[in-house]
């Protein structure tokens, strides 16, 4: 974290960074340039990256259990593509312009909620949400929303299109203090809630019938998990665009390190996901400085090889074999 704040186009020593943070927490902020860089620009950015990283990892872990599929991630269930529709509408056509810098967030949250409701209604069979139905509906509706986004881009003007593409690839570049509290608290609460569900998730990982036999209210649990992870993904997309790979890969890396017991996977994953994202963001803004690379590029570049190396070392952990 401190490293993430210290390194940048103007390098600062870790000591200087601590100094600024302590000054602010003590209530007498300094006036130096370092102060401005740390407090106004880098710190909110690093904090946001950490929260989003933890949220995507936690949500990814849970969605993989929810649909019993190792290839699932928080964006599988249509949320990110729904959010894209909302955000694209804002960026291209100025919807919600009166809301100022909240417009994109509101747009994408509304899009995410719409997508979530659609997937939920379509995939419901009686009282239960079946894993296969969820995956299929998520994938199909995602494709639909993506084509709506494409249509909007096609109809929009070229300059705005540029900003849409950058937004879609994900970035923490827009992080500011006023923007931080609401999503951070929302994601923090959601992570906290999911951390209490380790045992239930272990039971659910065996399948819905064994979980029922162990005294889990499977219908209710699945519904809660679906709604919470979708909201988390929606909020994460709203504040930082679509940062792929973290929610898919980090849970696997963590499982390979600590096993599949979710009482370990969830907390370790939250910390690891936060660090991973802060590091990724650090690389994103330093590698091609003074330009900034979309963080989605970085997360994929780090995440994919890491996972491949781990899987090749411990192949037996994955896949259902007789």
């Amino acid at each position: 974290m401190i490293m993430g704040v210290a390194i940048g186009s103007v390098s600062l020593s870790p000591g200087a960074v601590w100094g600024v943070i302590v000054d602010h927490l003590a209530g007498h902020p300094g006036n130096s340039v370092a102060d401005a860089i740390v407090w106004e620009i880098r710190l909110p950015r690093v904090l946001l990256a950490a929260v989003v990283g933890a949220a995507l990892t936690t949500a990814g872990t849970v969605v993989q259990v929810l649909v019993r599929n190792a290839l699932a991630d928080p964006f599988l269930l249509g949320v990110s593509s729904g959010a894209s529709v909302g955000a694209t509408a804002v960026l291209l056509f100025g919807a919600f312009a009166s809301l100022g810098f909240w417009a994109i967030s509101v747009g994408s949250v509304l899009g995410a909620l719409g997508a979530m409701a659609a997937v939920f209604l379509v995939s419901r069979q009686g009282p239960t949400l079946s894993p296969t139905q969820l995956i299929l509906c998520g994938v199909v509706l995602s494709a639909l929303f993506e084509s709506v986004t494409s249509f909007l881009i096609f109809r929009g003007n070229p300059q705005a299109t540029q900003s849409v593409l950058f937004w879609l690839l994900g970035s923490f570049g827009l992080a500011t203090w006023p923007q931080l509290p609401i999503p951070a608290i929302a994601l923090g609460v959601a992570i906290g809630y999911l951390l209490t569900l380790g045992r239930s998730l272990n039971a659910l990982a065996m399948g819905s019938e064994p979980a029922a036999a162990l005294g889990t209210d499977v219908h209710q649990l699945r519904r809660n998990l679906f709604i919470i992870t979708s909201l988390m993904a929606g909020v994460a997309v709203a504040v930082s665009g679509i940062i792929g790979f973290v929610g898919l890969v980090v849970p696997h890396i963590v499982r390979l390190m600590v096993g599949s017991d979710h009482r370990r996977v969830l907390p370790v994953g939250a910390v690891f996901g936060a660090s991973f994202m802060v590091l990724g963001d650090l690389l994103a803004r330093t590698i091609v400085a003074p330009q900034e690379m979309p963080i989605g590029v970085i997360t994929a570049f780090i995440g994919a090889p890491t996972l491949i190396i781990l899987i090749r070392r411990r192949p037996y952990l994955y896949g259902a074999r007789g």
Partner: protein
Amino acid sequence: MSLELQDLSVDIAGRRIVSDISLTVPDGSFAGLLGPNGSGKSTILKAIYRVHRPAAGRVLLDDADLLSLRPKDAARRVAVVAQEFALEFDFTVVEMVMIGRTPHKRAFDRDGEADRAIVDQAIERVGCQDLAHRGFNTLSGGEKQRVLIAQAIAQEADHLILDEPTNHLDIRYQVEILELVSALGITVLAAIHDLSLAALFCDTVHLIADGRIIAGGPPESVITAGSVRDAYGTDVLVISHPETGTPHLIPRRSRSTPAPSSPAAHPPVPPAGTGY
């Protein structure tokens, strides 16, 4: 500790799958549910452990309504072992058995000394000490089934539901698993595919056909060539097990296809139903 089903009926997707199932499993006894594929054995069991909600009827545990208990409380009374399965994300054997403690735990409870002792004992009980730190997915079918029984033991319920626990297992494991279960001394209701095997282990059996009980009682009176023909639509010979005297089924080829052996080698075929 008895388990009783009263006029239980279950609908799935608007279709009645089982109707008016009434049976009692007395305290500490081993009851078998027999019947052809699709006859509704699993459906009956799943209504007991809340996968299906009964359309009518009740499930009583010591005369109290099981389905009105909170799910967790019910799971402390009734454990389930179904057919072996694979996990998407592998747990170790110890972790798997520890999951059996779930209904005894609240959200923030940690695994205590007592839980670990119960898990160790359960693993020892099924003879899986050497496998304790192996991944569940790396085990053979029979080993997995023993681990699932250990999980049920760790659940500390006084009733056990088994849904075709010996499917896909070879003969050694079939016997071993049922031996293990009957040695637990708790009340057991098991759907079992193999009638001869069921006869060997069950105190009472209930034969299901088309979602209804067509016969119930001790294996000797229920498993006859006649009842098997009624339920399964096939002819079998029923002989008596030389050691236990329990009914044992011998399949027969249908009469329209002659056996490939010479006629002289054919012993006279006794009339069906007079077997044991």
